[in-house]
């Protein structure tokens, strides 16, 4: 079948597992070889770590698992472990006579799948296939994401094989394709071969998100079921209610998998709940200026939010609610951008703690976000932070400008919605087109505006950046917003020059800016400390986003967020 068959892969998992044993002691090599052969594995022994690495490199995919001793003369076992993990991503098992906790911990830290104590017994070796299998499963998941359901199904097939014992080689197996949930190694390998990237990330573009929202609405998802959300959020159970499967079907996107939809849905929910909260807030956070003009436009449309017009003053205000702006951005984006607009929230990285409270935009954003989801939550956002633009907003709208625009430290009352911020989020709408470029451009523009995202306001958690990323962070945003409000110097602290730093790469795939809360200070996301401020849920959101994160684009965010 797919490439996997070229190598004598395990046809009948776990039998036929290809093991590479590395140990400087020949006695052990012999013993292990014998034992592994007893388990019906294919064994290759190696006395030197260097040789082992060469072997692995020569035949990529020629081995399924590596067993290595810790103490070796030429190379430290841990180093070998790292190499293997990095280059070939194979499961590695360490072994040693020494079973001290510190050693074992070190092994695990370096990425070992398991740590065996010598003398090794047969039964211990019998189970090593589980590590291979586990990895396969994870690979498959990634593959699925990449290829969608198809590949997934393909993989299913192999699983039965091993149950039956020795079976035909994977080829036959794969042909059979039993739709089982167990991904057999074979399949996975094949898939793995097909998919170069192990972890495929689904990028929730605006369009995709819009589809999603439509589907969700069709199903009857509504905010009233927020209780559901909360429950779901807390227990992560509710997702099933709305039926990611249904959504998936409705969306009819080939490469999307149920898992993708499910997690996206979760974020969306979080976002909505945030919005709810935000509505309550409605505080005229002076800080958060809502660049509402542009937003207003978008308000109508989804993305129109781009106009995160950060009031000029705001911009100056440290309060850079990037997130807010970003939110706005993305909200707005839907309209403006078609592609994945990742809201590059250019968080004024330069500024340490930019409390960017994107005041102004916020109001907008929430609205917009709502729009996206079809829930017109927004209108009231203008006043308050109206919840972070729904997490759903995920629109990849890059809120590039977020920052500058956001500078919303908006002293000017948010109520205005319109944030005079000079930073107008750059025509976010328009700009969105070129996400990245926008961001930069916006950022630059922002820079011009003394966005000093105030470090004063930095109080606001940098979370904004993070928030942006985590759509789910919306919740956080809310909190952030609140706090940011306080911090936000209404005096419009100049945004910290948004320099490039600002780019808050919101990348989180979808939600950028859901952080909606204006106060979402777009914390320099690079500032880990800021991140810590971010409520935990933000982190979660980050995680979510992370999945969908586009590494290339959001490297920044990555750094900052994931510290």
């Amino acid at each position: 079948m797919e490439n996997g068959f070229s190598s004598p892969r395990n046809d009948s998992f776990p039998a036929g597992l290809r093991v590479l044993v590395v140990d400087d002691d020949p006695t052990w090599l012999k013993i292990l070889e014998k034992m592994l052969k007893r388990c019906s594995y294919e064994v290759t022994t190696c006395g030197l770590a260097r040789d082992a690495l060469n072997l692995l490199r020569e035949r990529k995919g020629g081995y399924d698992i590596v067993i290595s001793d810790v103490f070796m003369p030429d190379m430290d076992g841990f180093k070998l472990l790292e190499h293997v993990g990095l280059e070939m991503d194979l499961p590695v098992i360490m072994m040693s006579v020494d079973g001290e906790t510190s050693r074992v911990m070190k092994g695990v830290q370096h990425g070992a799948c398991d740590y065996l104590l010598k003398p090794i017994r047969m039964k211990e070796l019998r189970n090593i296939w589980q590590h291979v299998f586990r990895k396969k499963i994870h690979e498959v998941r990634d593959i699925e994401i990449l290829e969608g359901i198809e590949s997934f199904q393909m993989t299913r097939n192999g699983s039965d094989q091993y149950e039956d014992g020795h079976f035909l080689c994977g080829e036959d197996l794969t042909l059979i394709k039993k739709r089982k949930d167990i991904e057999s190694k074979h399949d996975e390998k094949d898939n793995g071969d097909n998919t170069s990237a192990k972890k495929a990330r689904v990028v929730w573009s605006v369009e995709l998100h819009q589809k999603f929202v439509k589907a969700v609405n069709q199903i009857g998802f509504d905010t009233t079921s927020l209780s559901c959300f909360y429950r779901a959020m807390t227990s992560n159970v509710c997702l099933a209610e709305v039926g990611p499967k249904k959504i998936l079907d409705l969306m009819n996107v080939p490469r999307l998998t149920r898992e993708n939809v499910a997690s996206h849905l979760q974020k969306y929910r979080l976002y909505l709940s945030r919005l709810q909260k935000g509505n309550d807030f409605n505080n005229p956070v002076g800080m958060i200026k809502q660049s509402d003009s542009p937003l207003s436009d978008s308000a109508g449309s989804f993305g129109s939010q781009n106009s995160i017009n950060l009031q000029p003053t705001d911009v100056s205000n440290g309060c850079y609610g990037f997130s807010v702006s970003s939110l706005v951005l993305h909200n707005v984006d839907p309209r403006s951008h078609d592609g994945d607009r990742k809201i590059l929230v250019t968080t004024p990285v330069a500024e340490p703690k930019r409390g960017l409270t994107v005041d102004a935009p916020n109001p907008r954003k929430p609205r917009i976000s709502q729009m996206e989801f079809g829930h017109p939550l927004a209108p009231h956002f203008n006043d308050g932070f109206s919840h972070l633009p729904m997490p759903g907003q995920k629109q990849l709208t890059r809120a590039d400008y977020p920052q500058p625009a956001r500078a919303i430290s908006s002293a000017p009352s948010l109520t205005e919605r319109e944030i005079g911020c000079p930073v107008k989020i750059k025509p976010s709408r328009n700009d969105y087109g070129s996400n990245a470029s926008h961001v930069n451009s916006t950022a630059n523009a922002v820079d011009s505006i003394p966005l000093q995202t105030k470090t004063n306001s930095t109080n606001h958690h940098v979370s904004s950046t993070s928030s942006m990323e985590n759509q789910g962070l919306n919740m956080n945003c809310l909190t952030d917003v609140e706090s940011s409000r306080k911090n936000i110097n209404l005096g419009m602290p100049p945004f910290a020059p948004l320099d490039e730093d600002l780019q808050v790469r919101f990348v989180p795939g979808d939600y950028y800016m859901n952080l909606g809360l204006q106060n979402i200070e777009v914390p320099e996301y690079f500032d880990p400390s800021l991140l810590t401020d971010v409520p935990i849920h933000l982190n979660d959101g980050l995680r979510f986003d992370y999945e969908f994160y586009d590494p290339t684009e959001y490297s920044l965010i990555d750094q900052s967020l994931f510290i």
Partner: protein
Amino acid sequence: MERNQLRRQVALTRQSLFDQGFLDEQFIQLEELQDDANPNFVEEVVSLHYRDSARLISNIEKALEKNPLDFNKLDGYMHQFKGSSSSIGAKKVKAECTLFREYCKAGNGEG
């Protein structure tokens, strides 16, 4: 006849080794690995081990002769030896190794 006698002797010796704590269950594992396809497996392993150990022991001797004693190196050797002996189930040897290592750690040359 003789074969049986020999067999018995072997069995007794073997048992005594276990009793005296020279061997432990690892040896049994090795025995289990032996089968028709590889009838002399245990023997092979043990001889392999002896060869390897001899080399190791000579290294250790050399290290011991040096003055001052290089405990780190000795410790390394001991670790190796311990691993080796555990492979065949040489319990006592392993225990001695552990003890040796303790001494090494303490810098106790006399031990």
